[in-house]
């Protein structure tokens, strides 16, 4: 796979930004995730980072498939505030839970991506979010239970 690091560095330089790859944080566009398709991870939640501006779920993927390596993956979501308004709570997904996760993978093929949907093996419940669905006034909101 062609590395995109040189292109990114060139782009950052053109933008007049510091090209150092670390540490820059977090408030970002999501087009580094391939939204045209998704992959499926099956495994165990190791950590949940309920932090701004993007929550992250660390999943140990046990189901290695072609192009989908096993091991630890990091799956990013929107902010805690936007998730709460979508019905999430910080205890909705707990470390240790068995899950199936649909992920828009990073375009460079590495073990990260954006969440499409997460399903708990214990209950069969699925969770996702779409902040563009909230474009109406006086929403009542419903918490996931």
């Amino acid at each position, binding site marked *: 796979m062609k590395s995109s690091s040189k292109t990114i560095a060139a782009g950052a330089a053109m933008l007049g930004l510091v090209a150092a790859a670390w540490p820059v944080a977090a408030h970002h566009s999501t*087009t580094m995730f391939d939204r045209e398709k998704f992959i499926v991870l099956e495994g165990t939640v190791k950590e949940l980072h309920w932090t701004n501006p993007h929550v992250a779920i660390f999943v140990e993927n046990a189901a290695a498939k072609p192009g989908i390596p096993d091991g630890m993956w990091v799956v990013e979501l929107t902010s805690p505030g936007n998730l709460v308004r979508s019905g999430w709570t910080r205890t909705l997904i707990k470390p240790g839970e068995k899950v199936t996760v649909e992920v828009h993978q990073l375009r460079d093929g590495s073990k990260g991506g954006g969440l499409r949907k997460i399903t708990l093996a214990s209950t069969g419940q699925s969770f996702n979010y779409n902040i563009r669905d909230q474009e109406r006034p006086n929403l009542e909101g419903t918490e996931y239970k």
Partner: protein
Amino acid sequence: MNKLLSTVLVGCLALTGIEALAQPAAKPKPVINPPPVAKDWADLAKLPDWSGVWNPKITDQDAQIKTNMPPWTLPAAEYIKFQLAEERAGRPPPLFTNCLPEAMPAWMLVTHNSMELLFTPGRVTMLGESDGARLRRIYTDGRPHPEDPDPTFHGHSIGHWEGETLVIDTVAILPQTLIAISEAAGQPNNGDMQIKERIYLKEKDIMHVELEITAPKVLTKTWKTTRIFFRQRARLYDIVEGVCQEGYFRPDKDKHGNDIFVAIPHAVGGNREPPK
């Protein structure tokens, strides 16, 4: 005779001068923000009801990338074209990954987060979720802009009410703040920017923010755009603390068992570096 008169006059002026030196000039009184009186608080009740939490119409932000592009200068247009191509290619330019405030006018233009507006005597305060420092102070007490204000992320804003419309004029905005059209495409204003806004309720629970952005270093003429926000009253929509820099870190324990933050790596685009 004339010579004698001149001598007397010069003598008098000299004495006056000595007198002036002997008594130091009165110290000018500081300009204060007077304590509000009951009427000031009562007058707030006559203003339109802007309470609640306001979330943005993101799909309209997206649409205006195609329908209402700012009138960029040629270099700015090239810059934006490059950024949009990078974003489409999956390499979003890291405009806000440094977690500095989205600032003006990008906050109003491309935020994905909520805001609230507070009225107090002589001032409207806008508080936004995320950034940790997303705050605008709009003085409505009749003061002018300072003669030489220090540039800031949100500039110096003065406002007045025209009926139920808040009219705001903002200057002294840092030249680095972005005229952003998405989270990955934006042009630094490069200085001398002025923003005029008219904020009002288009419908009972729909707020319009009309902006006129004049930025002579990067725009060929004033750019007009309207951004839309929806009112939410359910407590589920209450604004929560949003400290952007929190994303630099992960919660962990030190060797003493104390709860601490530990820095974690991120990719250029701002996402967490995936595990190897």
